[in-house]
């Protein structure tokens, strides 16, 4: 009953406002989903693995060549992985993907110049994504973010983000 009431309040707020704080968004992942996600798990894993491969390959290319055209591919892959991970309630994978997405969006829009230590951090975070998806495949759970992951996320996070 309480959950239903909370859900209604949240839905009302979404209808009234486009702005959506991230902490409310995380809560909604638990309260609003009414579909059997298991049915989509295999498809999630298949597509998530493909996105992680793109991220690995393009990051390596970008690190060695510095070709700015690769930023779009890195942005698109992280954007897609973010959306489907949050949809499946894999919120830590969603969070990491979102930070990578924001990083490459800003780089594309010339709001930041990627530094080598930041690219190294992203490489480590992509490794986390890979292991976490493997964990979902084998054990049906993602790997929780630890202090090291959070430090890496802080490194690539830009304070001017509005959410």
């Amino acid at each position, binding site marked *: 009953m309480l959950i239903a009431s909370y859900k209604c309040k949240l839905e009302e707020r*979404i209808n009234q406002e*486009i702005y959506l704080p991230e902490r409310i968004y995380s809560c*909604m992942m638990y309260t*609003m*989903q009414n579909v059997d996600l298991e049915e989509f798990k295999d498809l999630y894993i298949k597509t998530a693995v493909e996105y992680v491969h793109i991220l690995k390959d393009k990051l390596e290319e970008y690190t060695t060549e510095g070709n700015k055209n690769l930023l779009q591919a890195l942005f698109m892959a992280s954007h*897609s992985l973010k959306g*489907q991970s949050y*949809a499946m309630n894999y919120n830590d994978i969603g969070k990491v993907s979102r930070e990578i*997405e924001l990083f490459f969006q800003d780089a594309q829009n010339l709001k930041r110049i990627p530094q080598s230590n930041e690219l190294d951090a992203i490489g480590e975070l992509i490794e986390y994504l890979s292991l976490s998806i493997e964990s979902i495949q084998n054990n049906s759970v993602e790997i929780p973010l630890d202090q090291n992951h959070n430090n890496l996320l802080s490194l690539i996070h830009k304070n001017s983000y509005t*959410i």
Partner: protein
Amino acid sequence: MKIAVIEDDVFFQKFYSTRLTEQGFETLVASDGDEGLAMIRAQKPNMILLDIIMPKKNGFEVLEEMKKDPEISSIPVLVFSTLGQEDDVKRALSLGAKDYINKSFFDFSNLISKIKTIVK
């Protein structure tokens, strides 16, 4: 009723086309803006679910092209968004989209309600 899903992400394509088909809608799927526009012009769906960030032509470009084409300009569009796309949603609404839905919520009853409101 015919609904076009224009979305590059295979995961969301599959989810939304499966669920809409189960609800009795005829579903058409396109994977990018170019393909989507061609499909809209050929099939004239009753409504369009449109992703914003896509290859070839993005959702904004699709909305702009639709506006210029009287054959398809009146077809209602509901845009897909995800976390962090608040500004994108505002821009899409200013370009003529009727409403938006956060595709990661999987709140299907809300989607059906919006579809019914828009196409009634």
